[in-house]
């Protein structure tokens, strides 16, 4: 009975989404105030009913209702409670419900935090999101219902959650990734609403910016958590593999990064309008493409859900409809988007344009490498190929290096026009210092020249010193350093934190790729293996028993220069229900380096195969991501974005159109009042 309730609320949310996607949009177009006023309550309704659906599914998991097919496939009576709850997003159907619920959460947030915006604009934004929600809920009802039952012959117990997912990373990575992903539909809805209403002005850009920053910051965390989880769970010592399913979030993130920069230009200078709208559409399309790739079964990967061709066709159709429709609207509204080219060849606008081009080219190249195997297979009649990490690195690394060069120059130059002389004066010393330290630092630490390490260090320092120089310029005419620092805008501080985060990732990613070492060996108990400055003494293994697994636990003594450091305990488990083996790494995490041991398998003699890694700077990758996300969040808190309607020309226009809209709706109401 209870699962049917979830089904019912799901259908109700679909109905509400359909109403939300029609009446408020029509109302905003015709000036019908009543219909405009429906947007917020309908949004709340969608959120409530989808929450109920999600709660019902969670309840079915917690109460071990294996008559629900999705629960039977992804849970087991012995599964620990935290995984029973989170198994809701452990498979295709449930995760899509969770995804759709996230959308309704963002919608509710828009409905609540939009007091500064005109009601007709909010109605349009929520209406567009309602249409997206209608597409998602219909998809679930038609092709992937999480409440499908196995009746009357329900299984006595479930098949268990995939053992690779039974981990803390699984509790936090999917929610944050989904939340970031879905967040870009808000920015998309803002762009479509702007196209519909014809108000592509700086007010629109100002309203969009906090949402774009928030979605971007959360997506950053989501991707970083995925990378961290893959690092400690999958056990091959890597933190990024250019896996076809990792790529779409990365593409979305790169487009999102371009978008938050382009929005800044549109807000401050009123240019790049059409480009910003295009980016918002592209970022949203990339998030849909990610859904398509994971859920169509076209690709093999850790992330792929079991395949069903109708789902792929539906998502592809939806993607085509959304992108095609948006581009059509974009083309129809193109005359509205005239921007004046009021800037010189050396100006912040130009450097931000370069930033955007590089980011879009990088995402296009990743998209090409991700889709190429699928296209090749279709064209060649079934021949299979794969595109490996060398391709992605060959494209991505040089592009990011160029991006960094522009990044510092861009943030130090001024809007409209900057003289080359000014840039030389402000950045000459910074550049020299970065290059000299870039060569010297790695040399001093490792006694060895490494070209890649020098370039990476120089680029990282270029950003860091550039930030310091920029702040110095900003506060140089203030009375004291403290009052100068206090006078910095919150969004400016956010930007510099995020830029510092980018430098941290750049240093971490490059240096860990260059300086990591690993060794695979076969060891008997009591034997020692040395790697880098460390000795690892293998003490043997002992059996362990968990709630739903059995396994072996090894003990290693880590020595550095003959001084005992600590013990490490990697494990090899077998999950009893499914019989799947799983390797649990042992990691000694540190700011400067990680030590990392994975167990292979035992030989008949009692010896174990194992791999030992030393990974310098690997933590910097995630530390950098945290800084970037923090920067995004700090920028969102800037009060400037929540100021009530600013008196601009555009604002007056809105007031006028609202007034005429109100008149029209008054007319529309007349017959009713006469009755």
């Amino acid at each position, binding site marked *: 009975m209870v699962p049917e309730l979830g089904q019912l609320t799901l259908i109700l949310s679909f109905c509400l989404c359909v109403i939300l996607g029609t009446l408020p949009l029509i109302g905003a177009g015709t000036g019908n105030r009543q219909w405009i006023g429906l947007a917020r309550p309908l949004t709340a309704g969608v959120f409530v009913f989808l929450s109920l659906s999600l709660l019902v599914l969670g309840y079915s998991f917690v109460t071990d209702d294996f008559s629900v097919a999705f629960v039977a496939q992804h849970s087991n009576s012995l599964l620990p409670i935290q995984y029973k709850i989170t198994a809701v997003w452990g498979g295709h159907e449930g995760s899509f419900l969770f995804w759709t619920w996230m959308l309704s959460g963002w919608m509710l947030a828009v409905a609540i935090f939009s007091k500064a915006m005109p009601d007709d604009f909010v109605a349009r934004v929520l209406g567009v999101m309602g249409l997206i929600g209608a597409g998602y809920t219909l998809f679930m009802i038609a092709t992937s219902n999480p409440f499908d039952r196995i009746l009357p012959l329900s299984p006595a117990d479930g098949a268990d959650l995939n053992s690779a997912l039974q981990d803390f990373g699984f509790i936090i990575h999917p929610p944050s990734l989904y939340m970031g992903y879905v967040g870009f539909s808000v920015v998309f809805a803002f762009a479509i609403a702007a196209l519909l209403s014809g108000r592509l002005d700086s007010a629109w850009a100002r309203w969009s910016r906090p949402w774009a920053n928030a979605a971007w910051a959360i997506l950053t965390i989501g991707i970083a958590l995925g990378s961290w989880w893959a690092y400690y769970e999958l056990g091959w010592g890597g933190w990024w593999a250019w896996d076809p399913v990792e790529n779409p979030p990365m593409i979305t993130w790169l487009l999102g990064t371009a978008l938050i920069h382009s929005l800044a230009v549109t807000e401050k200078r009123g240019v790049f309008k059409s480009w910003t709208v295009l980016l918002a559409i592209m970022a949203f399309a990339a998030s849909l493409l990610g859904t398509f790739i994971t859920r169509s079964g076209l690709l*093999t990967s850790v992330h792929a859900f079991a395949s069903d061709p109708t789902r792929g066709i539906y998502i592809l159709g939806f993607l085509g409809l959304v992108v095609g429709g948006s581009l059509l609207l974009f083309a129809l509204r193109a005359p509205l988007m005239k921007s004046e080219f009021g800037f010189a060849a050396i100006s912040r606008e130009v450097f931000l344009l370069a930033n955007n081009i590089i980011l879009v080219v990088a995402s296009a190249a990743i998209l090409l490498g991700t889709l190429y195997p699928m296209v090749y297979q279709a064209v060649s009649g079934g021949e*299979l190929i794969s595109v490996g990490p060398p391709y992605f690195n060959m494209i991505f690394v040089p592009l990011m290096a160029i991006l960094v060069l522009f990044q510092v120059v861009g943030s130090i130059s001024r809007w409209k026009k900057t003289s080359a002389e000014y840039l030389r004066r402000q950045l000459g010393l910074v550049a020299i210092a970065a290059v000299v330290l870039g060569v010297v630092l790695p040399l001093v630490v490792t006694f060895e020249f490494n070209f890649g390490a020098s370039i990476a260090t120089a680029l990282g320092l270029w950003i860091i010193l550039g930030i310091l120089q920029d702040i110095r310029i900003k506060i140089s005419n203030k009375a004291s350093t403290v009052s100068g620092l206090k006078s910095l805008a919150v969004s400016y501080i956010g930007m510099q934190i995020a830029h510092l985060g980018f430098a941290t990732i750049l240093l971490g990613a490059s240096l860990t790729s260059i300086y990591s070492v690993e060794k695979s060996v076969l060891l008997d108990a009591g034997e020692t293996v040395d790697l880098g400055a460390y000795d690892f003494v293998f003490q043997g293994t002992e059996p362990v028993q968990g709630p739903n697994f059995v396994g072996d636990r090894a003990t290693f003594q880590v020595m550095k220069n003959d001084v005992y450091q600590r013990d490490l305990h990697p494990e090899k488990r077998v999950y009893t229900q499914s019989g799947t083996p799983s390797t649990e790494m042992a990691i000694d995490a540190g700011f400067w380096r990680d030590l990392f041991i994975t167990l292979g398998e035992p030989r008949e003699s009692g010896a174990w195969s194992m791999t030992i890694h030393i990974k310098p700077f690997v933590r910097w990758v995630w530390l950098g991501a945290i800084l970037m996300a923090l920067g995004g969040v700090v920028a969102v808190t800037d009060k400037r974005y929540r100021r009530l309607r600013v008196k601009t020309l555009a604002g007056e226009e809105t007031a006028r159109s609202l007034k005429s809209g109100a008149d029209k709706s008054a007319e529309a109401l007349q017959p009713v009042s006469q009755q």
Partner: protein
Amino acid sequence: MKPHRRKKLTIIAFIATGLSVAVGLSLYALSNSIDLFFTPTQVAAGEVSSGQRIRIGGMVKEGSVARSEESLHVEFIATDYNNDLLVRYDGILPDLFREGQGVVAEGMVADGVFQASRVLAKHDENYMSVEVKAAMDAAERDRADAVPAGESNGS
């Protein structure tokens, strides 16, 4: 030409140049890092030139896995049930590697033996990798062609 037109044109030229350089580089990089996929039958038929980096896929033949007691060396047979391919690997096999299950390996063929640089196993119980599935389907088609339809049940 009006100055703002010229400026616009310059920017468009700038973008177009950047894009075409990027596309050119991408295609060049792509042509150098594509791994073709082969089935054991294709390898047996000599379709792979030796030294070429490829991927192979098939089922791990029951009872074929042999591990060295002194080193990490391991050998197993990947089969599509028409032809067998001996795979050699020095390293640790993934968790989900098992006899009778699908496997994909990267490496190169030398003297009819596949020297793997990386071994991937399929990812969960119900899911066979696209590559292994394609290899199995191809092999099945070959068998169906070789044996008249009525007799295939008896074999």
